């Protein structure tokens, strides 16, 4: 009787140890400690979910949060520096979906990658959750997503029932003229932000992320609001006046007539990351003051 008890105890102890070890080992395997990110939006997400300390390298265009400025740079979409990446001995590399060469090289070096593709507003939230899983910060990721969703819901609630102004969402144009105007064409995260903020994309029917608008098409579609997005360089004073002056040529456009031409600046507007809630709130403030 005593012998059987001893065996059972021993077996249980071994089983427990094995289980504990397995849990310990697999936990160590799912938590990358040296993450290299080529995508600024994903870097922001990592820091926002608490995985900042695990980041060892960022892209040339990373700017936020401020602590990334001290991190080594490994190139970007068009020019990833594979040598540099490998020299940082990463155990997870965040790449753009189109960087197939880089992904192949990482695969050869047995380094796992997380491949990111551009998408709408929902996709941003999905990506945050996915990163939470990959980096072992599931709770923080969920909390972040909830926070963003709450804020966006609040905006939606505020603008519900209000008339949605038809908005020309301008991404870029030649300075001081109306040439080479690129605008939102009814799809993508910026269009989603516009809709959440209570606006309607004047090129909604096209269904493309970015289209070139000509003077004729702008005159025909007659937007009620013109929203120009800049990532930095807020025009002010005389420069703002001359930029607004360019639009005055199209005086039949309601946005010009009613002086509803606005500049919205800041990286919240151009990076599809955790600061999208900021972006939505700012747009809503402009569209529905």
């Amino acid at each position: 009787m005593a012998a059987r008890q001893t065996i059972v105890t021993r077996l249980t102890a071994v089983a427990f140890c094995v289980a504990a070890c397995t849990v310990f080992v697999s936990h160590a395997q799912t938590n990358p400690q040296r993450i290299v990110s080529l995508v600024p939006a994903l870097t922001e997400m990592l820091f926002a979910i608490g995985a900042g300390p695990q980041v060892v390298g960022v892209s040339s265009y990373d700017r936020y949060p401020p602590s990334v400025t001290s991190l080594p740079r490994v190139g970007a979409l068009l020019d990833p520096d594979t040598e540099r990446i490998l020299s940082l001995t990463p155990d997870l590399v965040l790449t753009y979906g189109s960087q197939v060469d880089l992904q192949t090289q990482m695969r050869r070096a047995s380094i796992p990658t997380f491949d990111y593709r551009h998408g709408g507003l929902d996709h941003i939230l999905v990506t945050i959750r996915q990163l939470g899983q990959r980096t072992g910060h599931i709770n923080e990721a969920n909390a972040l997503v909830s926070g963003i969703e709450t804020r966006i819901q609040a905006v939606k609630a505020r603008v519900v029932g209000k008339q949605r102004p038809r908005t020309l969402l301008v991404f870029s144009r030649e300075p001081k003229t109306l040439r080479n105007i690129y605008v939102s064409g009814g799809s993508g995260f910026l269009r989603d932000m516009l809709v959440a903020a209570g606006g309607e994309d004047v090129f909604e029917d096209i269904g493309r992320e970015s289209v070139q608008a000509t003077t004729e098409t702008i005159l025909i579609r007659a937007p009620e609001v013109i929203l120009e997005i800049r990532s930095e360089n807020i025009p002010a004073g005389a420069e703002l006046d001359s930029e607004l002056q360019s639009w005055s040529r199209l005086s039949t456009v309601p946005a010009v007539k009613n002086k509803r031409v606005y500049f919205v600046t800041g990286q919240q507007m151009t990076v599809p990351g955790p600061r999208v809630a900021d972006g939505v709130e700012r747009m809503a403030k402009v569209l529905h003051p």
Partner: protein
Amino acid sequence: MMNIRRRIAMVVLAFLAFAIAVIVVAPMVGSTSISLSKAFGRSVDWNENVDAQIFFVARLPRVLSGALVGAALAAAGVVLQALLRNPLATPFTLGVSAGAALGAMVAIAIGLDVGWFGVSSVPIASFAGSLVAIGIVYALATSQRRGLSTNVLLLAGVTLNSFFSALILFVQYVSDFTQSVRAVRWLMGDLDVGGYSSIVAALPMLLAAFGVFAFLPRTLNLLTLGEDVAAARGVDVMSAQRWAFFSASLATGAAVSLGGPIGFIGIVVPHLVRLMIGSDHRIVLPAAALFGAAFTVLCDLTARTIMAPLELPVGIITALIGGPFFLWLLVKRS
């Protein structure tokens, strides 16, 4: 008895009528139909008159710049083909457009943001770039011997094209994504000037070039037989070559600054015109200018209506027509 004066006059008038017809009708046509009576009537105030604004702000400047660019590039093509005695020469052969492109890309890359008289920095920088290219090619071509060697001119132009293309690639590489998009789009040509200031800015250069073109035709005929024979027939060859080179390059530089480097006009139009009426430059030069204007306006009309509500860059349409035409030309000649 043949009457040369009458023949020249009649053919040129026919082309003029065609060009005028195209230029008058084109602003009336577009992806949306507009009411001409509203556009031209006084009943509706300017700030409320969408039809008028579409006609006068969106379409008419576009048609006018298309006509000017087309006339300039076609005429420059004729002059350069005669100067280099090579029917395959184009206004872009001598590196002028590469210089213009480099100027534009540098302006885009460094975020140059100055404007002059309603013209933004990119057209100004691109014109400056074309002047630099003209200067370099001319200096190279006159460096060896007294006089302008057309062979050295051609070689200098081709070399400059390669060199500037390499520089353009470099500038593209150090640009960020948005700047690259802007640069690539500029290379496809864009006539949507949205106003008259760019046209007015380019006009002095174009008029100066066309002024010189008026004096060239018979000289160009004589240059066809070779420099020595032309000289023996009474042509001041060096002076003629200089005038031809500078006027054609100026016209090209101004046209590229206004609408971007729209390709194939400078070779398709001169050849079509020669096929129709022979090689006498007294007819070919004015006819090519007029036909070039009409051709470009028609290509732009196609570009802005064929995929409505989207618009294609005009350079794509001219390439789609010009590419196969160029191939056919090469095959026919061999």
